[in-house]
């Protein structure tokens, strides 16, 4: 990937609302060039989506999140692909990773409450044929997500005017 695209990704990762014109100025490029590069990144699904990072703990209807270690038997010829798909198609599932080490899939699940998450695991996840075992860990507090630190909005400590 060329340097312009990498620089654009760096900027958008920090602030997805930057306009192509602003990005072009910041990178010393032209608006047309930047817009074309962003189009390409979107078309190639390098940029998948522009989403807000939400600190749900500040929202009244708080959500419960759990990380689940799933051990499962891979299928001949397809490995973990189809089982991963069976899992990630559920809207409750926020992320699915194939892992090295003691278990196979790491599944992040979000629900309204503890009961909802527990019921999803026991009724949907654990009952999949190739799933051997699940271990559920509830997340108590999120400190940092995707490189963004929650609750780190301290005032600028600098003097307003200095030499």
């Amino acid at each position, binding site marked *: 990937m060329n340097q312009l695209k990498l620089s654009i990704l760096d900027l958008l990762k920090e602030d997805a609302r930057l306009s192509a014109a602003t990005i072009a100025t910041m990178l010393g490029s032209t608006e047309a060039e930047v817009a074309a590069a962003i189009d390409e990144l979107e078309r190639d699904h390098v940029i998948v989506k522009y989403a807000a990072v939400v600190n749900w703990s500040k929202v009244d209807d708080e959500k419960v999140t759990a990380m689940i270690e799933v051990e499962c038997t891979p299928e001949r010829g397809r490995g973990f692909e189809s089982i991963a798909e069976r899992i990630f198609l559920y809207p409750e599932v926020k992320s699915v990773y194939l892992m090295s080490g003691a278990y196979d899939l790491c599944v992040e699940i979000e629900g309204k409450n503890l009961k909802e998450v527990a019921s999803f695991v026991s009724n949907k996840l654990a009952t999949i044929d190739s799933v051997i075992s699940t271990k559920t860990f509830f997340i108590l507090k999120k400190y940092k997500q995707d490189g963004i630190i929650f609750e780190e909005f301290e005032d600028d400590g600098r003097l307003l005017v*200095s030499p």
Partner: protein
Amino acid sequence: MIRDKEMSQTAVEIPENSGVERFLSSKVRAIPPSGIRRFFDLVSNSKDKDIISLGVGEPDFVTPWRVRDAAVYSLEKGRTQYTANAGMPELRDAIAGYLNSQFQLDYDPAKEIVVTVGGSEGIDLALRALLEPGDEVLVPEPTYLPYGPITALTGGVPVGIETFAKDQFKLTAENLRAAITPRSKVLVLCYPSNPTGGIMTYEDMLPIAKLVREHDLIVITDEIYAELTYGSKHVSFASLPGMKDRTILVSGFSKAFAMTGWRMGYVCGHPDLISAMLKIHQYTIMCAPIMAQVAALESLSPTGLEEKDRMIESYNQRRRLVVQGFRQIGLPCHEPQGAFYAFPSIQSTGMSSEEFAQRLVLEAKVAAVPGHVFGKGGEGFLRCCYATSVSQLNEALERIGNFLNKIK
């Protein structure tokens, strides 16, 4: 009882209306109050939380965590002692290595480097080590403030040399030659420049070096912003042919490494000059704080240097944004190729820079420093630091634009 009586007698001898100022040295009294201080008071007193400040002189990054962590760890380990006067040997080694790889400078860490309390102390050491009463110190202006006052404290005479926007605020040989007298001894170079963002390239400095040799001057080069040079590579004055022994290099960690509050700087130069400066340093400071030295050492590690490069790229992006922004709203702005300041001209408004800056704070809630406080050539300009978030910069530009429309 007797003692009480003596004291009361002494007290009676002091004329009641006489202030303690009479104890002050005349040299200190002669230093005029700082214009930037007055402006600081104006902004701070307004207590308006909505003010966006482009008036700062430091990075918006906090020191990278790995650097802070190194200092915390050293404190936990009980490293709270003095270090060698000149600074920890391993830090001086690291500084020498860094200067060599970054700027092709060759300083012996054992004899040619002193770690100081900020670049500020380095400037003080250099001027005090060099000056006799009456010696003239040539300072291109507009400039960072302390060279003149420190020169005056030594009995030296600061001589400002005006530089101009048409020359991108570079010091030209012509202007330098015009300012040289038989009493000229020191030339101060502060490039990349605070407040203009101007730089001096190798070609710009060659004729300056020629004059320095012809007139037997010594150069104090304040290169605190060296790393913040955009689009080209900074050239250190000491790396010019024959200039190393005529140059005292002052630099530090404040700007490029986002370490302003640690007060970590260094001076480099000929061993005879350095040993003279070390004499002053050991009697006034003893040594720079050990925890800050440990932090500085970490910032020169390979990963520390990567963090520095990341910050510099971010300044460069915002530099382009702010320069174009000023031009779009109708304030001519020369291309600042260094530091983190833009220096747009406000001459078209017909206001003095002081009046413009004051009204800008009060009416548009944007603080920027009026150019006249930086000496000759600063009137008619505004120093705007772009080390602040993109959203704040855009908001500030919009407010300034609206203000300009209002006063048309």
